[in-house]
């Protein structure tokens, strides 16, 4: 058997015609008999031919070179000669305003094309193509069956990617550029104050430019809408009525008569008709029914009174805890029962609260003395002077607070701070008339940060004095401000309507 290396040597010699006549004759005889050898010889021949095609290799290299040069040229030439002045942009070192950049170079489209050319061969583009590969495939599927030759110029148009990009860029530029005419110009136009020359230019632009038409129309409508102060007033009035008034069309007496079963036939039918649809009235009737039931539980009320008495008694005897170890079984049970009853009654009191709240309870629920915060409205020198007053106020020594405040020297511009805390101190000392006077001075000042609070606390003073109308007026002013106390004020206004007796 011939070793493989020797065989390859002989094949190579045969292919290169290096064998002598005898060796060649023997090899060819073997070649006719051995198919494997024939294949091997053919392979060697092919390799030899390929390696020897030097002219083709040279041609291929030349073509690649030409292609590279073409790509470079197309980038340097740009599209539509947009980059003729590109060097100017490249050399720019100063910072230019947006307008200078636009006016001097008409540069944004150019810069875009320049950047586009620069990045055309970057991986990001290939990556983008890969990302959109599926979409492209879909598009090709859609095109299947359509004769592209019939759509003259379509292929060319699709391939004009530079123009597509430029169009997008121009759209972006148009979006980012400020409108040519300002609000001031449009107002001048609408008010007939525009000079003749600019007016002609403006009107010519208006005829062509839809955006400008939209702006002018908006300004026009806005002027008309803002001139409608009567409509705005009516809307505010309706809003106030709807937030402060009850929405039912029957008197309190009628509701009570309905609950007591005293309504006459016609009235009853009318009442029932409204009750069927008016959810607010339903809620009111239900509330009043519950209140009546609660009041009717006289046994529980008397028990509550007894328990309250028992608790007071126990406090006198310094009973500090209900689980004292020295208590006998009977006594512990008693206290446990008492606590349970108290919890039940506290719950019942909660239910009763809404209906039975007296003026005092409403006042106590909503009156909460604010902390000292004079710093928000007075200058630093005055702050020092107020330090001592602050201390008394914090200690709830309102008599001393009033004494000191009366002697502080305040400028008329800052007097509202003094008046506000004076009023609060009087209110805490139950001197409501004096408090109202001081709050009024704060409100009349007209321009300070305490007005809303002053109105709120003033309304509570009126409430305490049982002057419901005055209280309601102040509360409506608070509601109008839509500030911190709006919801509380609304709640009290509603109660004033039908709960507080």
């Amino acid at each position: 058997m011939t070793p493989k290396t020797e065989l390859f040597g002989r094949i190579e010699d045969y292919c290169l015609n290096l064998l002598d006549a005898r060796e060649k004759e023997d090899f060819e005889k073997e070649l006719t008999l051995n198919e494997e050898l024939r294949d091997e010889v053919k392979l060697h021949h092919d390799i030899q031919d390929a390696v020897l095609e030097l002219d083709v290799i040279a041609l291929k290299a030349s073509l690649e070179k030409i292609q590279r040069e073409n790509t470079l040229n197309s980038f340097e030439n740009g599209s539509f000669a947009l980059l003729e002045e590109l060097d100017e942009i490249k050399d720019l070192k100063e910072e230019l305003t947006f307008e200078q950049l636009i006016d001097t170079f008409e540069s944004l489209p150019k810069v875009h094309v320049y950047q586009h050319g620069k990045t055309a061969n970057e991986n990001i583009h290939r990556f983008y193509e890969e990302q959109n590969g599926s979409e492209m495939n879909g598009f090709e599927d859609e095109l299947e069956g359509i004769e592209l030759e019939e759509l003259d110029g379509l292929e060319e148009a699709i391939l004009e990617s530079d123009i597509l990009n430029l169009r997008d860029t121009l759209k972006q530029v148009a979006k980012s550029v400020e409108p040519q005419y300002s609000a001031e110009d449009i107002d001048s136009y609408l008010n007939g104050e525009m000079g003749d020359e600019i007016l002609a230019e403006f009107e010519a632009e208006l005829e062509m430019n839809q955006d400008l038409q939209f702006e002018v129309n908006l300004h026009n409508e806005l002027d008309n809408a803002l001139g409608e102060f009567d409509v705005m007033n009516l809307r505010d009035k309706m809003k106030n009525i709807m937030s402060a008034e009850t929405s039912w069309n029957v008197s309190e007496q009628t509701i009570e008569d309905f609950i007591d079963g005293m309504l006459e036939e016609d009235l009853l039918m009318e009442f029932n008709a409204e009750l069927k649809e008016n959810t607010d009235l339903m809620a009111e009737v239900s509330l009043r029914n519950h209140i009546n039931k609660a009041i009717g539980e006289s046994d529980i009320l008397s028990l509550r009174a007894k328990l309250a008495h028992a608790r007071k008694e126990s406090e006198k005897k310094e009973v500090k805890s209900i689980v004292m170890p020295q208590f006998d079984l009977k006594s512990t049970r008693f206290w446990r029962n008492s606590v349970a009853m108290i919890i039940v009654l506290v719950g019942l009191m909660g239910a009763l609260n809404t209906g039975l709240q007296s003026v005092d309870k409403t006042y106590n629920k909503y009156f909460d003395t604010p902390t000292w915060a004079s710093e928000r409205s007075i200058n630093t020198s005055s702050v020092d002077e107020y330090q001592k007053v602050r201390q008394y106020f914090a200690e709830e020594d309102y008599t001393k607070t009033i004494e000191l405040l009366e002697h502080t020297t305040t400028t008329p511009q800052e007097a509202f701070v003094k008046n506000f805390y004076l009023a609060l101190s009087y209110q805490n000392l139950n001197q409501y008339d004096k408090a109202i006077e001081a709050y009024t001075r704060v409100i009349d000042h007209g321009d300070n940060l305490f007005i809303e609070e002053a109105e709120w606390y003033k309304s509570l003073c009126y409430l305490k004095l049982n002057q419901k109308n005055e209280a309601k007026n102040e509360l409506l002013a608070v509601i109008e401000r839509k500030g911190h106390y709006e919801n509380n004020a609304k709640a009290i206004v509603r109660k004033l309507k039908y709960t507080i007796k």
Partner: protein
Amino acid sequence: MISYTDAQILKGILRHDNLILQYIYKQYYYKVNYFIKKNQGSEDDASDIFQEAVIVIYRKLKENDLIFEKSSFQGYLFSVCRLLWLKQLEKRRIEKEKLNDSLPYQEDIYDDNLIELIEKNEKYGLYQKHFKTLSSDCQKLLQLFFEKVPLKEIARIMGYKTEKYAKTRKFKCKELLIKRIKQDTEFKKILEDDT
């Protein structure tokens, strides 16, 4: 409770009479509220619709375009409320066909004029809502301008040193207002409806 005739009610609306407005609210609101709640609306929706219906009637009255021949104030008010709510349902893409019509209404009042007025009211209402969000200074300044108060007087009232400053301030306020309106999604919806 005192009751008023239609003529008295209309006069009261024109005068913004508190008693008449309260009467309208107490007399008719609960029916509108019931209708809207039955048709996928809320208490707030009912308040808004009722309030805007009164404003639409006021606009009609101002234009001298409100005569009750076959209808009454109640019928007209309910019909306007119903139409306003139908428009809302349309905006919210809720089916109108399944409407629970508890409000008595009159189809014949739904003419082009009313629909145009409702659209104008909606647009102007939006502008006015944003106007109310401006600072009181801006509101006052624009109000004086629209009341055609002379520039010099405006500068004096507002405490500005020059008329020029008053004018510049006015433009700033107006620009801010326009910016807020354009950013409002409701405004974009109105524009879409217009196109």
